[in-house]
């Protein structure tokens, strides 16, 4: 089954304004750089973006914010982005802050076909406001729902033409969860190979979850906090 599309522009061309998108990555690590650039070129707007972070001013989802393409962000942490802050404070941008583990688990629930899950995080805080609380074994849990995401856009290290994906190091993060959660999932990979070249024992996301795949190009892979030690 061949799911290969020509490139990022081809992969995202039917995403309409107003769509709900999941975008993989943690900070700038493992973000779908090629697709974000293509979304900026496509010029659609009023998007709801589910992503752990919102990029920085001039990279990642920050590029879409600059073009005012995002109506709402659903994230766990949105610092490091002055344009984001400006749009949030002026009310141009709606923001829903979700605890990181809750965000990940809601993505997981979506991919596993579960409408909702009971989670501990945020009980007794404003995160729980308006949500059903239920006690299990003496502890209070909040009912958190799965997402309804039209498209999931992820970045993998390697993939094959059938859509099977392998991630690298901590660039895995939200990517496999979101890959499983899109009604249509688009995967950009650093290396696209033929079926049979990936060991089936070491595939993180089965291709059944992936509808479109392409080999990305010119990855910048920007580092947000370069921390090093000196030899000796």
């Amino acid at each position, binding site marked *: 089954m061949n799911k290969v599309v020509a490139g990022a522009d081809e992969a995202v061309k039917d995403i309409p304004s107003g769509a709900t998108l999941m975008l993989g990555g943690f900070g700038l690590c493992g973000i779908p750089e090629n697709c974000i650039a293509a979304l900026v070129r496509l010029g659609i707007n009023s998007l709801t973006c589910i992503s752990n972070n919102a990029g920085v001013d001039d990279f990642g989802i920050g590029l879409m914010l600059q073009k005012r393409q995002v109506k709402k962000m659903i994230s*766990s942490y949105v610092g490091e982005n002055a344009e984001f802050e400006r749009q949030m404070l002026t009310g141009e941008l709606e923001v829903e802050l979700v605890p990181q583990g809750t965000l990940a688990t809601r993505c997981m629930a979506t991919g596993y076909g579960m409408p909702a899950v009971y989670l501990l995080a945020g009980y*007794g*805080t404003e995160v729980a406001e308006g949500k059903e609380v239920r006690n299990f074994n003496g502890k209070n849990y909040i009912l958190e729902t799965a997402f309804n995401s039209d498209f999931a856009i992820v970045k993998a290290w390697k993939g094959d033409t059938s859509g099977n994906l392998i991630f690298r190091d*901590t660039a895995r993060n*939200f990517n496999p969860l979101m890959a499983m959660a899109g009604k249509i999932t688009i995967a950009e990979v650093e290396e696209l190979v033929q079926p049979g070249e990936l060991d089936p024992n070491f595939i993180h996301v089965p291709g059944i979850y992936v509808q479109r795949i392409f080999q990305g190009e010119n990855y910048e892979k920007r580092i947000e906090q370069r921390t*090093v*030690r000196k030899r000796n």
Partner: protein
Amino acid sequence: MALNKEQIAKRIARELQDGFYVNLGIGIPTLVANYIPEGVDVVLQSENGLLGMGPFPFEGEEDADLINAGKQTITTVPGSVFFDSAMSFGMIRSGKVDLTVLGAMEVADNGDIANWKIPGKMVKGMGGAMDLVAAAKNIIVAMQHTNPKGESKLLPNCTLPLTGVGCIKKVVTDLGVFDITPDGFCCIEYAPGVTIDEIKAKTAGRLTISPNVKEIAV
């Protein structure tokens, strides 16, 4: 002399036990990794998807795909493993992570914590803090005893929006070490040169002094 940040981290490192899986938050908690006692084997968890976090890489060896939850470039130690964010919080939620160390803006004498939001200021988000405090088996807060205005951060009730309720077990500040008990904060150790009177004056929440209170060995 009140403890400096390194000394707070060093004191917390003594809470680490052989075989612990530990999650260290951003700031002072990160420094705890520098003071793991000799002969104590702990595995550091980074909630973006890694067990077995190592030190910062040597110059020129940094890798954009390998970062910690503070988005800093890091390395791995032998035996490390990567996983997705749901599994990462799954192991936290199911009690497999033995100890979490994190910073706070306020801690209440019943173990409530506030560390993510100041009304009127830009809200950056809670990240993984709410998940960690709700679920971790044992949580130690590392923070200054007072805020820059000199007001106590150990309170009868948190004034800022909560991160978690009744979850903190121990607080290590520049002035001392405090267990959270049904009677509020219990001072079990004080920093060298810091008096119990000073601790009493700077603790707004309920405070008892342990009969076995002693000076922190720095």
